[in-house]
Protein backbone atom coordinates (compact mmCIF):
# COMPACT_ATOMS: atom_id res chain seq x y z
CA UNK A 1 0.00 0.00 0.00
CA UNK A 2 2.86 2.34 0.87
CA UNK A 3 4.45 1.63 -2.49
CA UNK A 4 1.17 2.24 -4.32
CA UNK A 5 0.62 5.55 -2.52
CA UNK A 6 4.16 6.71 -3.19
CA UNK A 7 3.92 5.66 -6.83
CA UNK A 8 0.56 7.42 -7.29
CA UNK A 9 1.84 10.50 -5.47
CA UNK A 10 4.92 10.70 -7.69
CA UNK A 11 2.81 10.29 -10.83
CA UNK A 12 0.46 13.09 -9.75
CA UNK A 13 3.35 15.35 -8.73
CA UNK A 14 5.00 14.86 -12.12
CA UNK A 15 1.77 15.72 -13.89
CA UNK A 16 1.26 18.74 -11.66
CA UNK A 17 4.83 20.00 -12.21
CA UNK A 18 5.05 19.46 -15.95
CA UNK A 19 2.33 17.52 -17.66
CA UNK A 20 -0.42 19.95 -16.79
CA UNK A 21 1.58 23.07 -17.59
CA UNK A 22 0.23 24.79 -20.68
CA UNK A 23 3.65 25.27 -22.32
CA UNK A 24 4.59 21.64 -21.77
CA UNK A 25 1.22 20.34 -22.87
CA UNK A 26 1.44 22.40 -26.04
CA UNK A 27 4.80 20.88 -26.94
CA UNK A 28 3.57 17.39 -26.05
CA UNK A 29 0.44 17.78 -28.13
CA UNK A 30 1.67 20.00 -30.92
CA UNK A 31 4.45 17.73 -32.19
CA UNK A 32 2.26 14.61 -32.59
CA UNK A 33 -0.49 16.73 -34.14
CA UNK A 34 1.90 18.22 -36.71
CA UNK A 35 3.35 14.78 -37.47
CA UNK A 36 -0.15 13.34 -37.82
CA UNK A 37 -1.22 16.20 -40.09
CA UNK A 38 1.84 15.80 -42.34
CA UNK A 39 1.36 12.02 -42.47
CA UNK A 40 -2.34 12.28 -43.24
CA UNK A 41 -1.82 14.87 -45.96
CA UNK A 42 1.09 12.98 -47.56
CA UNK A 43 -0.57 9.58 -47.51
CA UNK A 44 -4.02 10.93 -48.32
CA UNK A 45 -7.44 9.38 -47.69
CA UNK A 46 -6.64 6.33 -49.85
CA UNK A 47 -3.69 5.29 -47.72
CA UNK A 48 -3.89 1.79 -46.32
CA UNK A 49 -4.69 1.75 -42.60
CA UNK A 50 -1.42 0.00 -41.82
CA UNK A 51 0.70 2.84 -43.23
CA UNK A 52 -1.27 5.55 -41.47
CA UNK A 53 -1.25 3.55 -38.23
CA UNK A 54 2.55 3.38 -38.42
CA UNK A 55 2.72 7.16 -38.73
CA UNK A 56 0.09 7.99 -36.10
CA UNK A 57 0.82 5.33 -33.52
CA UNK A 58 4.50 4.62 -34.23
CA UNK A 59 5.29 8.32 -34.24
CA UNK A 60 3.45 8.65 -30.94
CA UNK A 61 5.45 5.81 -29.39
CA UNK A 62 8.73 7.33 -30.60
CA UNK A 63 7.71 10.62 -28.97
CA UNK A 64 6.78 8.74 -25.80
CA UNK A 65 10.18 7.04 -25.62
CA UNK A 66 12.02 10.36 -26.16
CA UNK A 67 9.95 12.03 -23.44
CA UNK A 68 10.51 9.17 -20.99
CA UNK A 69 14.24 9.10 -21.66
CA UNK A 70 14.36 12.86 -21.13
CA UNK A 71 12.54 12.52 -17.82
CA UNK A 72 14.85 9.66 -16.76
CA UNK A 73 17.81 11.90 -17.49
CA UNK A 74 16.64 15.23 -16.12
CA UNK A 75 14.74 14.19 -13.01
CA UNK A 76 17.95 14.35 -10.98
CA UNK A 77 18.63 17.88 -12.19
CA UNK A 78 15.04 18.92 -11.52
CA UNK A 79 14.97 17.47 -8.01
CA UNK A 80 18.52 18.33 -7.01
CA UNK A 81 19.38 21.57 -8.76
CA UNK A 82 15.99 23.25 -9.18
CA UNK A 83 13.95 22.20 -6.18
CA UNK A 84 16.57 20.73 -3.83
CA UNK A 85 14.24 17.86 -3.03
CA UNK A 86 16.33 14.88 -4.16
CA UNK A 87 17.83 14.25 -0.71
CA UNK A 88 14.33 14.32 0.79
CA UNK A 89 13.12 11.74 -1.74
CA UNK A 90 16.06 9.46 -0.98
CA UNK A 91 15.57 9.95 2.77
CA UNK A 92 11.93 8.86 2.51
CA UNK A 93 11.24 5.23 3.46
CA UNK A 94 9.96 4.30 0.00
CA UNK A 95 12.44 3.15 -2.65
CA UNK A 96 13.61 5.97 -4.92
CA UNK A 97 12.97 3.68 -7.91
CA UNK A 98 9.25 3.76 -7.04
CA UNK A 99 9.28 7.56 -7.17
CA UNK A 100 11.05 7.51 -10.53
CA UNK A 101 8.58 4.92 -11.84
CA UNK A 102 5.74 7.29 -10.94
CA UNK A 103 7.42 10.16 -12.74
CA UNK A 104 8.13 8.09 -15.86
CA UNK A 105 4.63 6.67 -16.09
CA UNK A 106 3.31 10.20 -15.57
CA UNK A 107 5.33 11.22 -18.60
CA UNK A 108 3.73 8.44 -20.67
CA UNK A 109 0.27 9.70 -19.68
CA UNK A 110 1.11 13.04 -21.30
CA UNK A 111 2.57 11.29 -24.33
CA UNK A 112 -0.57 9.14 -24.71
CA UNK A 113 -2.67 12.28 -24.83
CA UNK A 114 -0.41 13.36 -27.72
CA UNK A 115 -1.15 10.09 -29.56
CA UNK A 116 -4.88 10.65 -29.05
CA UNK A 117 -4.59 14.23 -30.29
CA UNK A 118 -2.68 13.06 -33.39
CA UNK A 119 -5.40 10.52 -34.21
CA UNK A 120 -8.04 13.24 -33.81
CA UNK A 121 -6.17 15.59 -36.16
CA UNK A 122 -5.76 12.89 -38.82
CA UNK A 123 -9.45 12.02 -38.56
CA UNK A 124 -10.41 15.69 -38.92
CA UNK A 125 -8.17 16.17 -41.97
CA UNK A 126 -9.16 13.00 -43.77
CA UNK A 127 -12.82 12.98 -42.78
CA UNK A 128 -12.51 9.31 -41.87
CA UNK A 129 -9.87 7.03 -40.42
CA UNK A 130 -9.22 3.43 -41.37
CA UNK A 131 -8.07 2.61 -37.86
CA UNK A 132 -10.09 0.31 -35.59
CA UNK A 133 -10.31 2.13 -32.25
CA UNK A 134 -10.86 -1.06 -30.28
CA UNK A 135 -10.23 -2.04 -26.64
CA UNK A 136 -7.33 -4.16 -27.93
CA UNK A 137 -5.70 -1.05 -29.37
CA UNK A 138 -6.30 0.94 -26.17
CA UNK A 139 -4.82 -1.84 -24.02
CA UNK A 140 -1.87 -2.20 -26.41
CA UNK A 141 -1.10 1.50 -26.05
CA UNK A 142 -1.25 1.19 -22.26
CA UNK A 143 1.08 -1.80 -22.40
CA UNK A 144 3.41 0.24 -24.59
CA UNK A 145 3.38 3.05 -22.02
CA UNK A 146 4.26 0.62 -19.22
CA UNK A 147 7.09 -1.02 -21.16
CA UNK A 148 8.57 2.28 -22.25
CA UNK A 149 8.43 3.61 -18.66
CA UNK A 150 10.07 0.38 -17.41
CA UNK A 151 12.89 0.69 -19.93
CA UNK A 152 13.32 4.35 -18.95
CA UNK A 153 13.63 3.26 -15.33
CA UNK A 154 16.56 0.99 -16.22
CA UNK A 155 18.28 3.92 -17.96
CA UNK A 156 17.56 6.32 -15.06
CA UNK A 157 19.65 4.55 -12.41
CA UNK A 158 23.12 5.01 -13.95
CA UNK A 159 22.31 8.65 -14.71
CA UNK A 160 22.08 9.32 -10.96
CA UNK A 161 25.63 8.13 -10.46
CA UNK A 162 26.99 9.52 -13.73
CA UNK A 163 25.04 12.67 -14.63
CA UNK A 164 27.41 13.10 -17.60
CA UNK A 165 25.35 10.34 -19.29
CA UNK A 166 22.51 12.83 -19.68
CA UNK A 167 24.58 14.46 -22.46
CA UNK A 168 24.27 11.23 -24.40
CA UNK A 169 20.53 10.81 -24.33
CA UNK A 170 20.21 11.40 -28.06
CA UNK A 171 22.65 8.55 -28.62
CA UNK A 172 20.46 6.37 -26.41
CA UNK A 173 17.22 7.58 -27.98
CA UNK A 174 17.52 6.47 -31.62
CA UNK A 175 18.91 2.94 -31.19
CA UNK A 176 16.06 1.97 -28.87
CA UNK A 177 13.19 3.12 -31.05
CA UNK A 178 14.85 1.72 -34.16
CA UNK A 179 15.60 -1.66 -32.55
CA UNK A 180 12.14 -1.80 -30.92
CA UNK A 181 10.50 -1.22 -34.30
CA UNK A 182 8.39 1.62 -32.96
CA UNK A 183 8.29 3.48 -36.26
CA UNK A 184 9.07 0.83 -38.87
CA UNK A 185 9.21 -3.00 -38.85
CA UNK A 186 12.36 -4.66 -37.61
CA UNK A 187 12.30 -6.80 -40.77
CA UNK A 188 14.08 -3.83 -42.35
CA UNK A 189 16.99 -4.22 -39.90
CA UNK A 190 19.95 -6.62 -40.30
CA UNK A 191 19.41 -10.13 -38.97
CA UNK A 192 22.06 -9.81 -36.26
CA UNK A 193 19.99 -7.10 -34.52
CA UNK A 194 16.96 -9.39 -34.17
CA UNK A 195 17.87 -10.81 -30.70
CA UNK A 196 18.34 -7.29 -29.39
CA UNK A 197 14.89 -6.33 -30.65
CA UNK A 198 13.29 -9.39 -29.09
CA UNK A 199 14.82 -8.50 -25.71
CA UNK A 200 13.22 -5.07 -25.79
CA UNK A 201 9.82 -4.93 -24.09
CA UNK A 202 8.68 -1.97 -26.22
CA UNK A 203 9.20 -4.14 -29.34
CA UNK A 204 6.51 -6.56 -28.17
CA UNK A 205 4.28 -3.66 -27.17
CA UNK A 206 4.75 -1.99 -30.57
CA UNK A 207 3.94 -5.31 -32.23
CA UNK A 208 0.74 -5.52 -30.19
CA UNK A 209 -0.18 -1.96 -31.21
CA UNK A 210 0.42 -2.89 -34.87
CA UNK A 211 -1.57 -6.10 -34.58
CA UNK A 212 -4.47 -4.35 -32.82
CA UNK A 213 -4.40 -1.54 -35.42
CA UNK A 214 -5.08 -4.16 -38.08
CA UNK A 215 -8.27 -5.06 -36.22
CA UNK A 216 -7.04 -8.27 -34.57
CA UNK A 217 -9.05 -9.56 -31.61
CA UNK A 218 -7.75 -9.54 -28.03
CA UNK A 219 -6.86 -13.23 -28.21
CA UNK A 220 -4.40 -12.55 -31.03
CA UNK A 221 -2.74 -9.63 -29.22
CA UNK A 222 -2.61 -11.13 -25.72
CA UNK A 223 0.61 -13.18 -26.25
CA UNK A 224 2.40 -10.01 -27.29
CA UNK A 225 1.08 -8.22 -24.19
CA UNK A 226 2.33 -11.05 -22.00
CA UNK A 227 5.78 -10.98 -23.59
CA UNK A 228 5.91 -7.18 -23.22
CA UNK A 229 4.73 -7.14 -19.61
CA UNK A 230 6.96 -10.08 -18.65
CA UNK A 231 9.99 -8.23 -19.93
CA UNK A 232 8.76 -5.03 -18.23
CA UNK A 233 8.62 -6.86 -14.89
CA UNK A 234 12.18 -8.07 -15.47
CA UNK A 235 13.22 -4.48 -16.27
CA UNK A 236 11.53 -3.35 -13.06
CA UNK A 237 13.53 -5.90 -11.02
CA UNK A 238 16.76 -4.86 -12.74
CA UNK A 239 15.96 -1.18 -12.16
CA UNK A 240 15.22 -1.70 -8.44
CA UNK A 241 18.54 -3.48 -7.98
CA UNK A 242 20.37 -0.85 -10.05
CA UNK A 243 18.84 2.01 -8.03
CA UNK A 244 19.84 0.37 -4.74
CA UNK A 245 23.37 -0.17 -6.01
CA UNK A 246 23.69 3.32 -7.41
CA UNK A 247 22.26 5.06 -4.34
CA UNK A 248 24.50 3.06 -2.02
CA UNK A 249 27.48 4.02 -4.16
CA UNK A 250 26.36 7.68 -4.12
CA UNK A 251 26.01 7.55 -0.30
CA UNK A 252 29.52 6.15 -0.10
CA UNK A 253 31.11 8.75 -2.37
CA UNK A 254 29.07 11.61 -0.94
CA UNK A 255 27.67 12.57 -4.34
CA UNK A 256 24.04 12.10 -3.36
CA UNK A 257 23.41 15.64 -2.19
CA UNK A 258 25.01 18.58 -3.88
CA UNK A 259 25.78 21.82 -2.10
Amino acid at each position, binding site marked *: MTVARAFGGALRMHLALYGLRVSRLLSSLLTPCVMAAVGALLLGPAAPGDALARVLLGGGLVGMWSAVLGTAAFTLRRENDW*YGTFALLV*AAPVRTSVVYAGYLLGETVVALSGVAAGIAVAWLLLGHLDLPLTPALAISLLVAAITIAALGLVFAAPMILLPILTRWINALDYPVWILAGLMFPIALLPAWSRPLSLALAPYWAAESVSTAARGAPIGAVAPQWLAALGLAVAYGAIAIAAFELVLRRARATGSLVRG
Partner: protein
Amino acid sequence: MTAAIEVRDLRRDYVVRGGGPLRRSRRTVSALRGITLDVEEGELFGLLGPNGAGKTTAIRILSTLLLPTSGTATVLGHDVVRQAGQVRREIGILFGGDRGLYGRVSAWQNLRYFANLYGLGRALSDRRIAEALRAVGLEERAHDRVDTYSRGMKQRLHIARTLIHDPRLVFLDEPTIGLDPIGARELRDQVRRLRAMGKTILLTTHYMFEADELCDRIAIVDHGRLVALASPAELRRMVPDLYVLEIELEGGRPEAVARLRELAGPSSTLTATDLPDRQLVRLQSPRGRDLAAALPTTLAGARVGSVLVREPTLEDVYVRMVEGLPAGAPAVEAAP
Protein backbone atom coordinates in the same frame (compact mmCIF):
# COMPACT_ATOMS: atom_id res chain seq x y z
CA MET B 1 16.24 8.47 29.56
CA THR B 2 17.45 6.39 26.60
CA ALA B 3 19.68 7.61 23.84
CA ALA B 4 17.86 8.63 20.66
CA ILE B 5 21.17 9.03 18.86
CA GLU B 6 24.35 7.15 19.67
CA VAL B 7 27.47 8.11 17.77
CA ARG B 8 30.71 6.24 18.35
CA ASP B 9 34.02 7.31 16.87
CA LEU B 10 32.32 8.47 13.69
CA ARG B 11 34.64 9.34 10.88
CA ARG B 12 34.02 10.50 7.34
CA ASP B 13 36.71 11.05 4.73
CA TYR B 14 36.18 12.42 1.25
CA VAL B 15 38.43 11.73 -1.69
CA VAL B 16 39.04 14.96 -3.56
CA ARG B 17 40.26 14.62 -7.12
CA GLY B 18 41.94 17.39 -9.04
CA GLY B 19 44.45 18.13 -11.76
CA GLY B 20 44.15 17.89 -15.52
CA PRO B 21 43.46 14.97 -17.85
CA LEU B 22 47.13 13.91 -17.85
CA ARG B 23 48.20 14.52 -14.30
CA ARG B 24 45.51 13.55 -11.84
CA SER B 25 45.83 14.35 -8.17
CA ARG B 26 43.95 12.65 -5.38
CA ARG B 27 43.85 13.54 -1.72
CA THR B 28 41.74 12.64 1.26
CA VAL B 29 39.96 15.26 3.31
CA SER B 30 38.49 14.36 6.70
CA ALA B 31 35.16 16.00 7.44
CA LEU B 32 34.64 14.08 10.68
CA ARG B 33 37.57 12.73 12.69
CA GLY B 34 36.09 10.34 15.21
CA ILE B 35 33.16 11.97 16.97
CA THR B 36 31.45 10.28 19.91
CA LEU B 37 28.25 11.62 21.46
CA ASP B 38 24.78 10.65 22.68
CA VAL B 39 21.52 12.55 22.28
CA GLU B 40 18.78 11.64 24.76
CA GLU B 41 15.15 11.12 23.73
CA GLY B 42 13.18 14.36 23.91
CA GLU B 43 16.35 16.44 24.02
CA LEU B 44 16.99 19.52 21.90
CA PHE B 45 20.63 19.06 21.04
CA GLY B 46 22.71 21.69 19.27
CA LEU B 47 25.66 21.09 16.98
CA LEU B 48 27.76 24.23 16.65
CA GLY B 49 30.83 24.89 14.63
CA PRO B 50 32.31 27.07 11.92
CA ASN B 51 31.80 26.35 8.22
CA GLY B 52 33.43 23.07 7.29
CA ALA B 53 33.47 21.85 10.90
CA GLY B 54 31.55 18.70 9.99
CA LYS B 55 28.04 19.56 11.27
CA THR B 56 26.21 18.92 8.01
CA THR B 57 28.28 15.80 7.34
CA ALA B 58 27.17 14.47 10.73
CA ILE B 59 23.51 15.21 9.96
CA ARG B 60 23.79 13.59 6.52
CA ILE B 61 25.23 10.42 8.04
CA LEU B 62 22.58 10.31 10.76
CA SER B 63 19.80 10.87 8.23
CA THR B 64 21.16 7.99 6.06
CA LEU B 65 22.20 10.20 3.14
CA LEU B 66 25.88 9.53 3.58
CA LEU B 67 27.86 6.49 4.71
CA PRO B 68 30.52 6.90 7.39
CA THR B 69 34.08 5.89 6.59
CA SER B 70 34.33 4.23 10.02
CA GLY B 71 32.62 4.24 13.38
CA THR B 72 28.97 3.57 14.16
CA ALA B 73 25.82 5.61 14.57
CA THR B 74 22.37 4.52 15.65
CA VAL B 75 19.18 6.56 15.47
CA LEU B 76 16.33 5.43 17.71
CA GLY B 77 18.07 2.09 18.06
CA HIS B 78 18.57 1.52 14.31
CA ASP B 79 21.96 1.42 12.66
CA VAL B 80 22.15 4.19 10.04
CA VAL B 81 24.06 1.98 7.60
CA ARG B 82 22.42 -1.43 7.95
CA GLN B 83 18.90 -0.32 8.93
CA ALA B 84 18.51 2.83 6.86
CA GLY B 85 14.88 2.00 6.02
CA GLN B 86 13.82 1.88 9.69
CA VAL B 87 15.71 5.10 10.41
CA ARG B 88 14.01 6.89 7.51
CA ARG B 89 10.54 6.01 8.76
CA GLU B 90 11.17 7.72 12.10
CA ILE B 91 13.06 10.88 11.20
CA GLY B 92 12.22 14.23 9.64
CA ILE B 93 14.83 16.42 7.94
CA LEU B 94 14.85 20.14 7.39
CA PHE B 95 17.71 21.68 5.46
CA GLY B 96 18.22 25.42 5.72
CA GLY B 97 17.41 27.81 2.87
CA ASP B 98 14.31 27.87 0.75
CA ARG B 99 15.07 24.75 -1.29
CA GLY B 100 13.41 21.42 -0.63
CA LEU B 101 9.92 22.36 -1.81
CA TYR B 102 8.13 22.26 -5.17
CA GLY B 103 7.59 25.93 -5.92
CA ARG B 104 5.22 25.47 -8.85
CA VAL B 105 2.56 23.75 -6.83
CA SER B 106 0.71 24.63 -3.64
CA ALA B 107 1.68 23.97 -0.04
CA TRP B 108 -1.14 21.45 0.16
CA GLN B 109 0.17 19.55 -2.90
CA ASN B 110 3.69 19.56 -1.45
CA LEU B 111 2.49 18.13 1.83
CA ARG B 112 0.22 15.63 0.11
CA TYR B 113 3.17 14.35 -1.92
CA PHE B 114 5.40 13.87 1.11
CA ALA B 115 2.51 12.25 2.99
CA ASN B 116 2.23 9.81 0.05
CA LEU B 117 5.95 9.07 0.19
CA TYR B 118 5.55 8.12 3.85
CA GLY B 119 2.56 5.90 3.06
CA LEU B 120 -0.11 7.96 4.82
CA GLY B 121 -3.68 7.14 3.79
CA ARG B 122 -5.86 9.88 2.32
CA ALA B 123 -7.97 10.56 5.42
CA LEU B 124 -4.96 10.60 7.73
CA SER B 125 -2.90 12.76 5.39
CA ASP B 126 -5.82 15.24 5.01
CA ARG B 127 -5.96 15.57 8.78
CA ARG B 128 -2.19 15.82 9.20
CA ILE B 129 -1.82 18.37 6.40
CA ALA B 130 -4.54 20.58 7.91
CA GLU B 131 -2.98 20.28 11.38
CA ALA B 132 0.54 20.96 10.14
CA LEU B 133 -0.53 24.01 8.12
CA ARG B 134 -2.48 25.33 11.09
CA ALA B 135 0.48 24.76 13.39
CA VAL B 136 2.75 26.85 11.19
CA GLY B 137 0.11 29.48 10.41
CA LEU B 138 -0.19 28.78 6.69
CA GLU B 139 -3.73 27.43 6.46
CA GLU B 140 -5.00 30.52 4.62
CA ARG B 141 -2.30 30.22 1.96
CA ALA B 142 -2.55 26.43 1.70
CA HIS B 143 -3.63 26.43 -1.95
CA ASP B 144 -1.33 29.18 -3.20
CA ARG B 145 1.76 28.32 -5.22
CA VAL B 146 4.79 28.01 -2.96
CA ASP B 147 6.94 30.24 -5.15
CA THR B 148 4.68 33.14 -4.12
CA TYR B 149 5.65 32.62 -0.45
CA SER B 150 8.15 34.70 1.50
CA ARG B 151 11.30 32.99 2.73
CA GLY B 152 9.91 32.82 6.25
CA MET B 153 6.71 31.19 5.01
CA LYS B 154 8.74 28.64 3.05
CA GLN B 155 10.73 27.78 6.16
CA ARG B 156 7.49 27.31 8.10
CA LEU B 157 6.23 25.09 5.30
CA HIS B 158 9.47 23.11 5.64
CA ILE B 159 8.59 22.53 9.28
CA ALA B 160 5.11 21.37 8.28
CA ARG B 161 6.66 19.05 5.69
CA THR B 162 9.08 17.69 8.27
CA LEU B 163 6.21 16.88 10.64
CA ILE B 164 3.77 15.38 8.17
CA HIS B 165 4.61 11.78 9.07
CA ASP B 166 4.91 12.54 12.79
CA PRO B 167 8.61 11.65 13.13
CA ARG B 168 10.08 10.93 16.56
CA LEU B 169 13.33 12.65 15.72
CA VAL B 170 13.89 15.80 13.69
CA PHE B 171 17.11 17.05 12.12
CA LEU B 172 17.17 20.82 11.65
CA ASP B 173 20.18 21.88 9.60
CA GLU B 174 20.57 25.66 10.00
CA PRO B 175 16.82 26.27 9.85
CA THR B 176 16.97 30.06 10.31
CA ILE B 177 19.66 30.71 7.72
CA GLY B 178 18.71 33.62 5.47
CA LEU B 179 15.62 34.56 7.48
CA ASP B 180 14.90 38.10 8.63
CA PRO B 181 14.80 38.61 12.42
CA ILE B 182 11.02 38.24 12.63
CA GLY B 183 11.01 35.11 10.47
CA ALA B 184 13.85 33.66 12.52
CA ARG B 185 12.01 34.37 15.76
CA GLU B 186 8.84 32.70 14.42
CA LEU B 187 10.88 29.70 13.43
CA ARG B 188 12.50 29.46 16.84
CA ASP B 189 8.98 29.47 18.31
CA GLN B 190 8.14 26.57 16.00
CA VAL B 191 11.22 24.69 17.20
CA ARG B 192 10.11 25.22 20.81
CA ARG B 193 6.70 23.80 19.90
CA LEU B 194 8.35 20.74 18.37
CA ARG B 195 10.22 20.29 21.61
CA ALA B 196 6.98 20.64 23.58
CA MET B 197 5.50 17.92 21.38
CA GLY B 198 8.19 15.58 22.72
CA LYS B 199 10.28 15.38 19.56
CA THR B 200 14.00 14.76 19.83
CA ILE B 201 15.72 17.51 17.87
CA LEU B 202 19.23 17.78 16.52
CA LEU B 203 19.83 21.38 15.49
CA THR B 204 22.81 22.87 13.71
CA THR B 205 23.16 26.62 13.68
CA HIS B 206 25.69 29.39 13.27
CA TYR B 207 23.79 31.65 15.64
CA MET B 208 25.05 31.32 19.19
CA PHE B 209 22.13 33.10 20.82
CA GLU B 210 19.81 30.69 19.02
CA ALA B 211 21.64 27.68 20.42
CA ASP B 212 21.81 29.35 23.83
CA GLU B 213 18.08 30.08 23.75
CA LEU B 214 16.90 26.71 22.45
CA CYS B 215 19.28 23.88 23.24
CA ASP B 216 19.45 21.62 26.27
CA ARG B 217 22.98 20.63 25.38
CA ILE B 218 25.45 21.75 22.79
CA ALA B 219 28.34 20.02 21.06
CA ILE B 220 30.93 22.34 19.58
CA VAL B 221 32.74 20.77 16.64
CA ASP B 222 35.72 22.12 14.79
CA HIS B 223 37.83 20.54 12.05
CA GLY B 224 35.72 17.39 12.39
CA ARG B 225 36.44 16.95 16.08
CA LEU B 226 34.31 17.41 19.16
CA VAL B 227 35.71 20.38 21.03
CA ALA B 228 33.17 20.65 23.85
CA LEU B 229 29.91 19.06 24.93
CA ALA B 230 27.76 20.50 27.69
CA SER B 231 24.67 22.58 28.47
CA PRO B 232 24.89 26.29 27.51
CA ALA B 233 25.27 27.25 31.19
CA GLU B 234 27.97 24.65 31.73
CA LEU B 235 29.79 25.81 28.63
CA ARG B 236 29.82 29.36 29.95
CA ARG B 237 31.22 28.08 33.25
CA MET B 238 34.00 26.30 31.37
CA VAL B 239 35.72 29.63 30.85
CA PRO B 240 35.58 31.08 34.37
CA ASP B 241 38.90 32.75 33.76
CA LEU B 242 37.47 34.85 30.94
CA TYR B 243 35.88 38.27 30.81
CA VAL B 244 34.82 40.37 27.85
CA LEU B 245 35.52 44.00 27.13
CA GLU B 246 33.38 45.62 24.41
CA ILE B 247 34.44 48.98 23.01
CA GLU B 248 32.48 51.04 20.48
CA LEU B 249 34.75 53.22 18.36
CA GLU B 250 32.99 55.97 16.43
CA GLY B 251 34.18 56.42 12.86
CA GLY B 252 36.72 54.12 11.24
CA ARG B 253 39.87 54.14 13.37
CA PRO B 254 42.11 51.31 12.22
CA GLU B 255 45.09 52.69 14.20
CA ALA B 256 43.04 52.48 17.41
CA VAL B 257 42.15 48.87 16.64
CA ALA B 258 45.81 48.13 15.98
CA ARG B 259 46.77 49.64 19.36
CA LEU B 260 44.04 47.52 21.03
CA ARG B 261 45.40 44.45 19.31
CA GLU B 262 48.83 45.28 20.69
CA LEU B 263 47.32 45.77 24.14
CA ALA B 264 45.46 42.46 23.91
CA GLY B 265 48.64 40.52 23.21
CA PRO B 266 48.67 36.76 22.58
CA SER B 267 46.70 35.84 25.71
CA SER B 268 43.54 37.69 24.61
CA THR B 269 41.30 37.30 21.56
CA LEU B 270 40.24 40.41 19.64
CA THR B 271 37.40 40.58 17.11
CA ALA B 272 36.39 43.81 15.33
CA THR B 273 32.97 44.18 13.69
CA ASP B 274 32.25 47.04 11.26
CA LEU B 275 28.89 48.70 11.90
CA PRO B 276 27.44 51.51 9.70
CA ASP B 277 29.05 54.45 11.54
CA ARG B 278 31.21 52.77 14.16
CA GLN B 279 33.28 49.74 14.95
CA LEU B 280 32.62 47.25 17.72
CA VAL B 281 35.79 45.78 19.18
CA ARG B 282 35.45 42.76 21.44
CA LEU B 283 38.32 41.64 23.62
CA GLN B 284 38.17 38.31 25.41
CA SER B 285 40.75 38.38 28.09
CA PRO B 286 41.86 36.25 31.03
CA ARG B 287 40.73 37.56 34.38
CA GLY B 288 43.53 39.28 36.20
CA ARG B 289 44.56 41.34 33.19
CA ASP B 290 42.94 44.71 33.76
CA LEU B 291 42.74 45.90 30.18
CA ALA B 292 40.16 48.58 31.04
CA ALA B 293 42.70 50.47 33.10
CA ALA B 294 44.96 50.79 30.08
CA LEU B 295 42.23 52.05 27.74
CA PRO B 296 42.57 55.82 28.31
CA THR B 297 46.18 55.67 27.14
CA THR B 298 45.61 53.12 24.37
CA LEU B 299 42.63 54.95 22.90
CA ALA B 300 43.97 58.48 23.27
CA GLY B 301 42.70 60.53 20.34
CA ALA B 302 40.01 58.00 19.33
CA ARG B 303 36.30 58.79 19.74
CA VAL B 304 34.99 56.13 22.08
CA GLY B 305 31.21 55.57 22.09
CA SER B 306 31.00 53.19 24.98
CA VAL B 307 33.01 50.68 26.99
CA LEU B 308 31.38 47.64 28.55
CA VAL B 309 32.87 44.95 30.74
CA ARG B 310 30.70 41.83 30.86
CA GLU B 311 30.58 38.09 31.58
CA PRO B 312 31.17 35.77 28.60
CA THR B 313 28.23 34.71 26.44
CA LEU B 314 28.01 31.40 24.61
CA GLU B 315 29.44 33.13 21.55
CA ASP B 316 32.51 34.14 23.53
CA VAL B 317 32.90 30.58 24.74
CA TYR B 318 32.55 29.35 21.18
CA VAL B 319 35.19 31.75 19.88
CA ARG B 320 37.51 30.74 22.71
CA MET B 321 36.89 27.02 22.07
CA VAL B 322 37.25 27.16 18.32
CA GLU B 323 40.03 29.71 17.99
CA GLY B 324 41.77 29.17 21.27
CA LEU B 325 42.37 25.45 21.17
CA PRO B 326 44.95 23.75 19.01
CA ALA B 327 43.51 21.42 16.35
CA GLY B 328 43.25 17.93 17.76
CA ALA B 329 42.92 18.96 21.39
CA PRO B 330 40.71 16.58 23.39
CA ALA B 331 37.04 17.45 23.89
CA VAL B 332 36.02 19.31 26.99
CA GLU B 333 32.97 17.73 28.61
CA ALA B 334 30.98 18.96 31.54
CA ALA B 335 31.32 16.86 34.68
CA PRO B 336 28.19 14.72 35.20
